[in-house]
């Protein structure tokens, strides 16, 4: 019945999709992953697609763009752009459409950017492709766009390469690229997962602004119900390849009928829902069929105060040199991590939050020496990480596992995911191949994937599925510490709950310690014991979760807390106007001596940079 | 008429590396140089001496050769001019001698001046060459393409150690021949122009010559016989049927001349078992367990069908022979022709009688010694064909053969450190060609003397590769050195030849001729095996 409502607006719609069915070929069989999708988007309108991870959101958007691999996929139905059938266009005509009429922000920015071209050039290309401007003009435009997406020091970073950017910065590059050509329709596939809430807000504002100015229509795919509530006019809920419910956002949020819709909304973690509890709390688990909460939420384990920390970080500093000129002389350095100290006890979760690009991932990588720190001491479970030889380093790494921010890039494209998950277990000779298989199958089930997916390859999965694979892999070794870098950002609410609960369970049973890097403040609030807030490479505030959330001291922490979107469509026209202040860059000239920071104690274990 | 026939194009598939035969000694260099610089006398196509710069051939009869055979006096033709217009004098000959005998010069033709104690200019036109001992055959220095006269004016600063540094002189010697070097690109191409001061005003007919080098024999043949791009190609070592097929194009023809080359199989007199290590192939190793049996040697020889080898590999350019000394005619023996017809039965009988019993594997053996031989030769398709044929023939008399071929640069290289040189002869049998320069066999026959056996003591430098040692033979060679009468010399030489063949020191296979190809439009080519093939290039002309 809702379908009827949607079809009605076809005439004036920018995009209208009818009976879209997309199938992939597996071996000799065709398997449909998106079935019978119908929707329209009008100019200036924002339509959000929400849904379970792996339900076909990305495939839908790629089908619209006709960007799926031609020989292993099949698109049926009709996709009309302003009345023009896209599925029948020839290559050249389709090329004209892409980037010009429709542009797209891809879910995984790491692999979606060409690794060997400077980002500036990649954005400029989008402009030069469709507009008749000079290279210099294009460059100006790119710099403006980079500024708009809040990349600090855009001029200097114009010529840098994707691998020199943080996850969030890459995502913003993708956004800038998509916006560069001022499309009629923007398809944004989880464009803000790697962004902190302040920047996320700014980006959303930017999109809104463009919508207002240029009449751009937006198809927005996201898991963040707060974002949905904030920007979308209408929402489509997808479940297992089908649109199970469509309607105005307000309708969906307040009068969702499909059990999955209800499950989705009732599970949304809300900031401040902890009600003064000290310890992390499990998420309510929802039965998707009925939409009812099945297991009541329970408080998770606490931390033994006296326990020796498994991870101690003292004055960790990591810098990336910037070289320029013919001689490749060092002209400065990115002070990605500066003087960071913290410790982590068994059974404890320390959340690391902060602005995108502030050095969270670098901190995580420095701890395991995946990047060489420039200074500081790290001890992991008794190992002095800085001094380890190759063999010991290897043993040390067994106790500390990472979930990378970009799961796709961290999976070997030529290795089936089953093998990828089993690999650490087999490599460390923790058991036989069959044991590994059983364990991997079990873990995959527990993160919501089927064991039957093991022979598939990474590229055949959705973003969220890959993230879960990465989590499963990190759990294979029964480590003592897990560095989870945005480990649940691409998961829909229900699966996020499931995965977080799994992590909490494991923590309780095995006294696991987590370094939990995330932008999702609501999740952070729920799962962590302590929180560290990073800003420009330094920890500006660290303390028990409750203290930091309830009593933020540092201005940045305060700002962060304020920017968290609230999943309530009623508040959607709120304007933030955060865009005004200057963006700070962590790039420092040669010889820069970082100021000695003083910390002031606010409460027990609650330190704030003075 | 001089210079009316345009360009003469010659192809040498081995390129010419220098124009100074004293510094190279390679056949191709000697041939190329022979167009420019000339000796006092040279051999014609029959092997007879003809005067070139000399007015006549000195003999005892005409007084040119001293009665005691210790000196020879040459008279130059009158009014001879170098190509730069200056006169040729006896001093140039004296200088040439000095040039080649200067210490540290490394003169490749030193052998031509061996035994020469002095060369003096009696007057401008008269050259007297004196020898240490009586020389029954005194025509060595300044005779033949290998020892031409060079100009003193050009080479006077190039004596001894300085010789290699005179690049422009070495590449463009001033001579008396029909042509003058125009441009020399080492190992590539030489261009010549007619010598304006050549003594015969009507010659050469060609205005210029291009002598190109490189490639292989077959393609050189093709360029003359099939495509007609070139007029003359030297040394066509190609299977006869290929040449025949190329000839079908009708563009060229083949010319042959037989000199003294004999393709032979050496049978090692000494044991060569690898377990003997460094003693291999020396007297210390003891006699060869199988090849020391004369019956075996003889059987090996008569088992070979030389006709077939000739037909398969040489065609016109070869004749079966049983002589080590195949030419000139007066030296040719007819006493050993028993080997000319293949006689497998006879060979088998010989071996049976000698006690070599056929084993179940088809290989004969006696007292634990099997007739199994390692047969080496240099790499070359004709030789490999011959190897295959011989292996097949020998297998019919119960002799097993393992073939080996070795790069020519190693085989003939004489590096004492290499196990693969023909001098070391770390094999039971080996095959190659040898010959001698000029028409006098004395030095050649001396190679089979006992004291010339290569051994570690003399750095493996001896010429007696087969390690033949027979005091009778040595005595006969000494006698040859004392005899001056030509017919007596011939008789002795034939005796020596027969001894070698009958004792089975070596198995002569093929008397090899030189085979060259020239265009049908080229006239005047007289193939010469005793001297440079280009010896009469002045007389060549284009067919009208």
């Amino acid at each position, binding site marked *: 019945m809702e379908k009827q409502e949607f079809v009605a607006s076809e005439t004036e719609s920018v995009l209208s999709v009818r009976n879209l069915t997309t199938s992939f070929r*597996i*071996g000799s*069989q065709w*398997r449909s992953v998106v079935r019978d999708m119908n929707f329209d988007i009008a100019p200036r309108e924002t339509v959000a697609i929400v849904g379970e991870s792996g339900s076909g959101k990305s495939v839908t958007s790629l089908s619209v763009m006709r960007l799926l*691999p031609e020989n*292993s996929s099949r698109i049926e139905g009709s996709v009309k752009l302003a009345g023009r059938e896209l599925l029948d266009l020839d290559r050249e005509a389709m090329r004209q459409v892409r980037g010009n009429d429709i542009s797209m922000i891809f879910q995984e920015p*790491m692999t979606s950017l060409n690794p060997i071209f400077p980002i500036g050039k990649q954005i400029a290309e989008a402009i030069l492709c469709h507009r008749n401007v000079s290279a210099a003009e294009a460059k100006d435009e790119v710099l403006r766009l980079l500024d708009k997406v809040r990349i600090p020091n855009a001029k200097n970073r114009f010529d840098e390469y994707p*691998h020199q950017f943080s996850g969030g910065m890459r995502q913003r590059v993708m956004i800038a690229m998509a916006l560069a050509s001022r499309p009629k329709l923007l398809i944004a596939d989880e464009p803000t997962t790697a962004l902190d809430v302040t920047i996320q807000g700014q980006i959303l504002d930017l999109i809104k602004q463009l919508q207002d100015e240029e009449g751009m229509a937006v198809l927005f795919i996201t898991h963040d119900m707060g974002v949905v509530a904030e920007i979308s006019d209408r929402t489509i809920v997808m479940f297992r*390849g089908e649109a199970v419910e469509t309607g105005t956002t307000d309708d969906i949020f307040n009068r969702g009928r499909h059990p999955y819709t209800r499950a989705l909304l009732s599970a949304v973690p809300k900031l401040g829902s902890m009600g003064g509890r000290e310890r992390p709390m499990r998420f309510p688990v929802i039965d998707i069929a009925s939409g009812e909460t099945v297991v009541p939420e329970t408080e998770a384990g606490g931390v033994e105060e006296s326990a020796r920390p498994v991870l101690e970080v003292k004055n960790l500093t990591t810098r990336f040199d910037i070289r320029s000129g013919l001689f490749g002389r060092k002209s400065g350095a990115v002070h990605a991590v500066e003087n960071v100290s913290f410790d982590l006890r068994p059974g404890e979760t320390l959340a690391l939050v902060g602005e995108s690009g502030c050095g969270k991932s670098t901190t995580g990588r420095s701890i395991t020496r*995946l990047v060489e720190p420039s200074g500081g001491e790290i001890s992991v479970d008794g190992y002095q990480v800085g001094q380890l030889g*190759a063999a010991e380093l*290897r*043993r*040390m790494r067994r106790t500390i*596992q*990472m979930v*990378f921010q*970009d799961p796709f*890039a*961290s*999976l*070997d494209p*030529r*290795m*089936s995911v089953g093998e990828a998950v089993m*690999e*650490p277990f087999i*490599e*460390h000779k923790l058991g036989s191949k069959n044991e590994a298989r059983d364990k991997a199958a079990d873990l995959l089930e527990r993160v919501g994937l089927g064991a*039957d997916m*093991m022979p598939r*390859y990474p590229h055949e999965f959705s973003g969220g599925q890959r993230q879960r694979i*990465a989590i499963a*892999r990190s759990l294979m*070794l029964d480590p003592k510490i897990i560095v989870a870098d945005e480990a649940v950002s691409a998961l829909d609410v229900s699966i996020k709950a499931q995965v977080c609960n799994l992590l909490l369970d494991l923590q309780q049973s095995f006294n696991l310690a987590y370094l939990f890097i995330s932008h999702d403040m609501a999740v952070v609030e729920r799962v962590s014991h302590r929180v560290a807030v990073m800003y420009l490479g330094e920890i500006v505030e660290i303390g028990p979760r409750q203290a930091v959330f309830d009593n933020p001291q540092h201005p940045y922490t305060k700002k962060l807390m304020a920017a968290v979107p609230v999943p309530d469509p009623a508040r959607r026209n709120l304007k933030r106007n955060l865009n005004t202040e200057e963006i700070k860059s962590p790039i420092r000239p040669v010889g820069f001596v970082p100021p000695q920071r003083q910390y002031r104690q606010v409460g027990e274990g609650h330190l704030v940079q003075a | 008429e001089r210079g009316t026939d345009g360009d003469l194009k010659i192809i040498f598939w081995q390129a010419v590396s220098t124009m100074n035969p004293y510094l190279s000694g390679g056949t191709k260099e000697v041939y190329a140089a022979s167009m420019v610089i000339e000796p006092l006398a040279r051999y014609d196509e029959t092997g007879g001496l003809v005067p070139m710069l000399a007015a006549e051939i000195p003999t005892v009869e005409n007084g040119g050769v001293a009665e005691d055979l210790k000196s020879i006096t040459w008279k130059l033709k009158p009014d001879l001019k170098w190509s730069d217009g200056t006169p040729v004098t006896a001093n140039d000959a004296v200088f040439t001698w000095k040039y080649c005998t200067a210490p540290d010069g490394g003169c490749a033709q030193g052998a031509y001046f061996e035994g020469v104690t002095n060369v003096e200019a009696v007057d401008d036109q008269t050259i007297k060459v004196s020898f240490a001992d009586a020389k029954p055959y005194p025509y060595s220095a300044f005779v033949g393409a290998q020892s031409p006269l060079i100009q003193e004016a050009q080479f006077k600063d190039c004596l001894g150690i300085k010789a290699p540094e005179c690049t422009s002189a070495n590449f463009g010697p001033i001579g008396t021949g029909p042509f003058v070097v125009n441009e020399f690109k080492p190992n590539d191409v030489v261009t010549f122009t007619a010598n304006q001061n050549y003594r015969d005003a009507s010659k050469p007919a060609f205005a210029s010559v291009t002598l190109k080098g490189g490639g292989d024999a*077959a393609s050189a043949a093709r360029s003359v016989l099939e495509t007609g791009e070139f007029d003359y190609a030297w040394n066509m070592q190609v*299977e006869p*049927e*290929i040449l025949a*097929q190329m000839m079908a194009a009708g563009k060229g023809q083949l010319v042959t001349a037989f000199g003294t080359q004999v393709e032979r199989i050496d049978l090692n007199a000494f044991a060569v078992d*690898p377990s003997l290590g460094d003693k291999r192939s020396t007297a210390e190793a003891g006699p060869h367990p199988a090849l020391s049996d004369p019956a075996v040697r003889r059987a090996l020889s008569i088992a070979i069908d030389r006709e*077939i080898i000739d*037909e*398969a590999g040489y065609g016109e350019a070869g004749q079966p022979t049983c002589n080590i000394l195949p030419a000139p005619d007066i030296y040719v023996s007819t006493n050993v022709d028993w080997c000319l017809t293949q006689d497998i039965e006879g060979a088998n009988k010989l071996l049976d009688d000698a006690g070599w019993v056929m084993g179940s594997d088809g290989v004969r053996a006696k007292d634990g010694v099997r007739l199994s031989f390692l047969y080496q030769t240099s*790499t070359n*398709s004709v030789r*490999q*064909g011959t*190897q*295959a*044929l011989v*292996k*097949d023939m020998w297998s019919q008399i119960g002799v097993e053969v393992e*073939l*080996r*071929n*070795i*790069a020519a640069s*190693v085989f003939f290289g004489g590096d004492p450190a*290499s196990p693969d040189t023909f001098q070391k002869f770390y094999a039971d049998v080996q095959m190659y060609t040898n010959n001698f320069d000029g028409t006098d066999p004395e030095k050649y026959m001396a190679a089979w003397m006992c004291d010339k056996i290569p051994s570690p003591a003399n750095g493996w430098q001896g010429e007696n590769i087969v390690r033949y040692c027979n005091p009778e033979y040595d005595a006969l060679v000494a006698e040859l050195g004392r005899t001056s009468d030509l017919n007596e010399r011939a008789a002795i030489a034939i005796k020596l030849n027969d001894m070698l063949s009958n004792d089975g020191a070596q198995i002569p296979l093929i008397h090899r001729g030189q085979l060259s190809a020239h265009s049908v439009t080229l006239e005047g080519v007289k193939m010469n095996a005793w001297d440079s093939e280009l010896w009469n290039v002045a007389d060549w002309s284009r067919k009208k």
Partner: protein
Amino acid sequence: MTEATMTVDTRARSGNFWAMLWRQFRAHPGGVAGLIVFTLILLLVFVGPFIHTIDPNQLDIRNKNQGPSWEHPFGTDNLGRDMLAGVMAGGQISLAVGMTAMLLSLVLGTFVGVLAGYFKRIDGPLMRLTDLFLALPLLPLLLVIIMLFRDTLRSTFGPETGIFILIVVVIGITSWMHTARIVRGDVLAIKSQEFILAAKSSGMWEYRIILKHILPNVMSSIMVSATLGIASAIITESALSFLGLGFPSDFPTWGRLLFDGVNFLQITPSRVLWPGLAISLTVLSVNYIGDAIRDALDPRALKH
């Protein structure tokens, strides 16, 4: 997505690596064709002599330079040797030499390339070593090797095996450098990718990372090197023999037959046709097999 298809699917794609590779391979028409041709060549070469029983070294000078006939399907050469027998006997040697020498050079090259690309510390020395080997003049090197080792090998392994080992080793150690440099370049590019970092962070041994992550990802270059390597090895072998450094002349090999036949091109074209065809077909079929393996190892390649 019915359950039925899923289970079929799962079964079809599980199993061990080789079974999977084989299944992928089977689906590749080019690869299958290549494999069939290659098998046929192997059959011809190894089983053929039992059917066509003429000895390749048997001379029949009266029947030389013959065209194809029932008795001599490929004709005869200028000494009357049967060409078919020659091609079959030559194939045994050429294939053995081509394959083993190629494998040797591939293993060496990949080994050096991967080590140099992966471990920065030994990159310099290894690459300078590669430069050295590239710069060494082949011929003198061969002469020296043969001078030093031929007799020992001959006495230990007999004349045939000895020379075989020598040739294979000689070709192997003088042709690994290209592979090494190509592999190194690829490794340099791949080792900076994040999945290598991820593998490191899981505490894998470096050599395991190399084996499981680096190697499969540089496979396509290695495959090309392998195909080209076979061709070069077969031809280098012939070059060795005509320089007098290879097999004795009574061991025909394809390269040698071709070389010897070139001058007879106009008299008996079949002398060059068959060995040339044999070499080309071998290389072509190996190329398609390599392509199929490459495609089978690349989950994203289009599958037929």
